[in-house]
């Protein structure tokens, strides 16, 4: 496994597209985990300027334990597309440069090839989960009014859910990249699928009031693993935990994409 990760990192790290996407992702993560409070303070100052003293967004405990974990993960998951693109690049490049063929000729089995990509997806998910954990701890300690072991770690399992969200989504992009093999078309299809197809079906299912349609949409299923926590600050009821059946569905989708990707690569001539 370390051998495959080593190979994959050697391929990907010097790549400019990967570097740019990774930097964008890191910047996004820092902004999300550090920048929301300063923004609220800026808003408060603006409101005071216009004489609306009553509105104070800084009272929202965005960065306070234990709320911070659900807040951070549910915002950070919006940026998963950046990692998805980098993975699509890495897989479609292998096809357009035909290096997948040369890799197999050199002695990698087709299975090892797919696993090197899956391990990379797992690696990216694990690293961003870990980074979010560290950043969350730092900002949590800065902004929390009350700190205790129980408060800090009680909702930390949202990070595990975040890891599964990312990993399942990256398996989905791996599948799209393997299916299409052309980077631009694959990225186009990914955006089209997420924005138009899934949203279209989603809205349609809401209008028709058919609950189960949502579970047939992989990205919607992945997204809704961590529910949007923000309505609770307007005193609305939200699901502030990770439901087992939703987790099961995400894992099921991930397994399905793994199976489909492997089958495609094994069946195809390179």
């Amino acid at each position, binding site marked *: 496994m370390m051998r495959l990760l080593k190979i994959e990192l050697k391929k990907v790290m010097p790549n400019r597209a990967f570097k740019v996407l990774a930097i964008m992702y890191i910047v996004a993560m820092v902004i999300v985990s550090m920048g929301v409070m300063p923004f609220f303070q800026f808003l408060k100052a603006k409101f005071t300027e216009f004489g609306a003293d009553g509105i104070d967004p800084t009272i929202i405990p965005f960065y306070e334990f234990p709320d911070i974990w659900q807040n951070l993960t549910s915002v950070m998951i919006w940026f998963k597309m950046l990692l998805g693109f980098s993975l699509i690049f890495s897989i479609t490049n292998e096809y357009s440069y035909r290096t997948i063929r040369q890799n197999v000729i050199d002695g990698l089995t*087709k299975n090892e090839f797919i696993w090197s990509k899956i391990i990379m997806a797992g690696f990216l998910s694990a690293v961003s989960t870990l980074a979010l954990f560290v950043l969350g701890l730092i900002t949590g300690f800065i902004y929390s009014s009350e700190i205790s072991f129980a408060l800090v770690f009680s909702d930390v399992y949202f990070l595990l859910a975040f890891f599964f969200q990312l990993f399942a989504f990256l398996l989905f992009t791996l599948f799209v990249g393997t299916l299409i093999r052309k980077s631009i078309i694959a990225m186009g299809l990914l955006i089209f699928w997420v924005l138009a197809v899934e949203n279209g079906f989603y809205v349609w299912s809401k209008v028709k009031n058919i609950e189960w349609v949502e579970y047939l949409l992989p990205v919607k299923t992945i997204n809704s693993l961590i529910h949007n926590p923000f309505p609770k600050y307007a005193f609305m009821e939200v699901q502030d935990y990770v439901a087992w059946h939703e987790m099961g569905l995400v894992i099921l989708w991930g397994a399905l994409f793994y199976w489909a990707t492997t089958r495609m690569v094994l069946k195809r001539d390179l």
Partner: protein
Amino acid sequence: MGRLLNINKTQKHDLETVLSIKGLSKQYGRVRALDNLNLEVKKGDVFGILGPNGSGKTTTLGIILSVINQTSGQFEWFGEKANKDTRKTIGAILEHPIFYPYLTAVQNLKIVCDIKEVPYARVDEVLTQVGLDERKDTKFKTFSLGMKQRLSIASALLCNPTVMILDEPTNGLDPQGIAEIRELIIEIANSGKTIIIASHLLDEVQKVCSHFCVLQRGKLIYNGLVEDVGKGSVSVEVKADHDDLQTVLEASGLGTTVKRELDKYIIKMEGDHSAAEVNAYLFKQGITAKHLLVQSKSLEKQFLEILAGNKEGGAQ
């Protein structure tokens, strides 16, 4: 075909068989790219696979390297079915050189080291061997075709392979590049490695190979030794100052046919008659030959004859 396949029977020793292909076929939709191919390559052979474009050379190499799934048939490396470690001991280059364009020569070769599980120390050794050490930290995409080709040979040499597979190794190179690559191949062959070369450049195969086979439309139509090429009937080129040399030569009874090519005549000799007899005969007729040359048959001629013969006789 049975007669053609028996050449290696004298040196039969199963341990020495590097590659054996049995009844290999590949179907692309309705096209049969490879039709029931049988081949054996022994240790130390420099084996040339000849054939016109689209005859199934690359398909064959793709299948034995596990990048193309065969429709039916089997192949064995070193007497056993290909497993995950087989290709790590084979150095192979198919078609044009394939590397990551945004990586340097060294970075590219290190990836191959990881794949083949070879120490990185080999990288510098092979780069020196192919004469690329000066450009080792330059990106692959800036390389000229000749340098790319040399890098892929370096990559194939990384694992110190027992078998090398080359597909059109001099394709697209300038004459100097061709000479360099050929030199390298001969060097590698002299070190006792088994080499399999697919090519449509007959001259190349004749210069470096010990064995060759010919494929046509996916079928094996010839399999034999390169040194056997040129055995059999001999042709003699004659030039002389005489108005009707054609008739004189035809009347000699030494050759089966006499053909004119510009200012010279070519006699295809009959039986054991030699060029000396032609000279003696002309002298007796009072003609002095000013040019007399025995043409040894080139692989190119043999190849074209095999292909032509096959077209008439059907693939047998």
